[in-house]
């Protein structure tokens, strides 16, 4: 209903015949009675809580309880497969074992190397392609859909098809091509350095699309006249990019980077399918180590302590990243 400015809701608008509208008093009475039925001010809070209750219950059951339980488990010797022996409190023993465990530190190093390898590369590819697509006027929808496709494929499928088949060392098409060109085949999955590189390539292939889409959305928010004015004033492409485009895209870029940093810290699917953490321990991530200890091995106590350590590392990296980004944005504003 087109309500007139200034007219009370439900009142006849100017030019309307009062005869086609129910008598105002009657309508107001109906509204009031319904409102009285539903709106006792002391019950307002009750209604709010009732409406919030499902969310609160879900959050408590699915988030708070597991987090608290995991914390409890980290201070015990809880083990799923140890039958007939009571679980007892062991204090900081699991964390002590964690800090002195060279295998665990190797997984931390692998995870950090992986994150530092893939996230900047995805950002660079994403920004480059987003800038290119920003100037595309025809077929933009096609490009967007095209770049969305890798995101829609399961990482397990990507790892198997792209990883295990394309990078197969003996008869895989990539090595066959390399040998056809007269070079030695590359040990993509059996050499520690190459295996990490292969995993990074697959992750970059799949997740650069996410950066492209996020940064394209950010670039659309940059007023064209600003860039045009800079160009008229004689600014080069790079000057325009660093002084205008990048600062204005930074809030969305920071969000996208943070999401990818957190995701990269939790990587497990690609590695599990492609290398199983090998060769040796060259590609084992912290999350894979947690899965092995806690889920497969049944050592819930040690797995829980590893989980909390990973959470701490992620909070530190994520927090530091946000602080640095905010500082950079403030400096740009100044």
């Amino acid at each position, binding site marked *: 209903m087109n309500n007139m400015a200034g007219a009370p809701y439900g009142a006849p608008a100017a030019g309307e015949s009062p005869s086609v509208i129910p008598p105002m008093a009657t309508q107001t009475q109906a509204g009031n009675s319904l409102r009285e039925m539903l709106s006792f001010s002391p019950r307002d809070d009750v209604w709010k809580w009732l409406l919030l209750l499902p969310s609160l219950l879900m959050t408590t059951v699915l988030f708070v309880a597991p987090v608290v339980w995991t914390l409890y488990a980290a201070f015990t010797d809880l083990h799923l497969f*140890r039958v*007939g*022996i009571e679980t007892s409190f062991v204090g900081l023993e699991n964390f002590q074992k964690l800090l002195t465990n060279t295998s665990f530190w190797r997984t931390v190093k692998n995870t950090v190397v992986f994150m530092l390898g893939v996230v900047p590369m995805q950002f660079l590819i994403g920004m480059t392609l987003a800038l290119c697509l920003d100037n595309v006027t025809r077929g933009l929808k096609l490009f967007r859909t095209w770049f969305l496709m890798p995101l829609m494929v399961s990482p397990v499928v990507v790892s198997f098809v792209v990883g295990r088949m394309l990078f197969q060392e003996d008869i895989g098409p990539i090595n066959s091509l390399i040998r056809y060109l007269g070079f030695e085949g590359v040990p993509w999955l059996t050499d520690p350095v190459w295996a990490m590189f292969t995993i990074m390539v697959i992750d970059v292939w799949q997740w650069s699309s996410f950066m492209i889409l996020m940064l394209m959305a950010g670039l659309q928010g940059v007023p064209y006249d600003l860039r045009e004015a800079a160009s008229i004033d004689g600014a080069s492409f790079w000057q325009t990019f660093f002084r205008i485009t990048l600062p204005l895209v930074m809030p969305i870029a920071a969000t996208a980077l943070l999401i990818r940093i957190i995701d990269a810290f939790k990587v497990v699917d690609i590695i599990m399918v492609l290398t199983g953490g090998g*060769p*040796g*321990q060259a590609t084992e991530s912290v999350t894979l180590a947690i899965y092995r200890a806690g889920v*497969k*091995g049944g050592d819930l106590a040690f797995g829980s302590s590893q989980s909390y350590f990973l959470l701490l590392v992620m909070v530190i990296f994520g927090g530091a990243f946000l602080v640095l980004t905010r500082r950079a944005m403030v400096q740009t504003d100044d």
Partner: protein
Amino acid sequence: MYGGVTRRDFLRLAGGAIGVAALAACAPPAATSGGEGAADTEPIVIRYAGLEGMGATVERFIQPWLEDNGYGWERGSFGQQELTDKIMQSVATNTYLADMFQFPSNARADVIAANALYPIPDYVQDAVNFDDIIPSIVNTLSWGGQVYSLPFDGDVHYYSFRKDLFGDAAVATEFESETGHQLNPETGAVTWDEWRAIAEYFTGRDWNGNSEEDDYGIACMNKRGDTLWWGFHSRATAYAKHPDDPSYFIDVDTGEARVNNPGFVRALTEWVEENQNWAPPGGTGFTYGDSLNAMNGGRVTQTYNWDAVTTAVSSEFSVIQGKQGYNILPGSYEVYDHKGGGWESFAEPSAAPFLAFGGWVIAVSALTDDSVIEHVWDMSIEISKPESGLWFVTNPTGCSPYRYSQLEAIDEFASGTLQLGEEVAKDYLDAAKATLDHPNAVTDQAFGGWVQYRDALELGVSKALAGEAEPETALNEVAAAFDEISDRMGGKERQAELYRLTLGL
């Protein structure tokens, strides 16, 4: 919408409606008309959990029987490692998974000790003719003298080789002049030294006739997280399992880890060299399937596996039908004597075939409802009785022989669905009998926490294969990890006691 209802009012109404709907959904179902009559027509449903491939085979096999008896059927399907994880989690949390499930026999300590299974009643054992089952398989079905599961698959590792190439006179002559060993087309390599000589000789030649000197000697399962545990132990038992000493993984008396003694170190040192030099590219990270594909695709001359026999004849990619030979795993003239602290020489090769995980077994969950249990036992008899067992092992199901009667059934293997041919069938069944009945056969690790021991060993061996650690250093790490796992699982003495139980001591 009329003017008296605000957005807030609407939300309240919606909230109220959702609440009523939720309460209605939680209410018990109303009795259907006909009540008892309707319940009477409900079929009894038997629930089964197993591997995707094998489960589908069981389903195909049992369907007519289910229909004849009017039973309903539900099947849960899982990947190999996922199934073990699901079972272990359901056991540990006392949660119902299925009435009957398939599980790897080396998880028996974890599953049975948690009272997760019904013992097999005597009448079921009689009905499936337990006396016909090979004792080493009976051991994998039992715990403390009580039978808890039924046989389904007698999985062990067999040595597999290219009989056609080994029988070529020109190749045999050249091989002997180059290596000093003889190629025997009937037995293949009978020692690991011969295996190595064959592997080296056949690498870098064009024996498969594709005009490229790119063929190799061996392919082994050695990918971490896949089947490395079995690949390595099948290679190590001949050096590390002394015929007079029952211990292998840990000491049966003290529970101390043995996996870093010189027998294991020699096995790993040689295995690393072989896989790095005489296997196809990527051969230090082969899955179980990769090693089979390399053999069946004609890329290598030797391997050891569970399913080399059936896949060589049934795989559409196989180019070696009728060309393959089988035998017990190679042995060694020298065996490390852990108790004596030195190597002992033997006049004849000492073999110690690895009963690599002992096979999949089926068991009945202790959480099965009383109203169903009799029917579940009936079904277990139907699956495990001798006639059914013969069908499973003579069809491309992934199941291997486990009964004496199956080892005699040469015709069924030679001319049945598998079409092995008489010579291959005889080789295969002889190899199975020699392995399953061998006095020095090594029972797979089945004391509590086997998944953790497996992960620890796979990490160390994988490091050595990748050149990240020397074999001895890697195995010292594994031994330390074994001891730590034993301590966490209740102590070395407790683990030693469980180990003795798994060996029937």
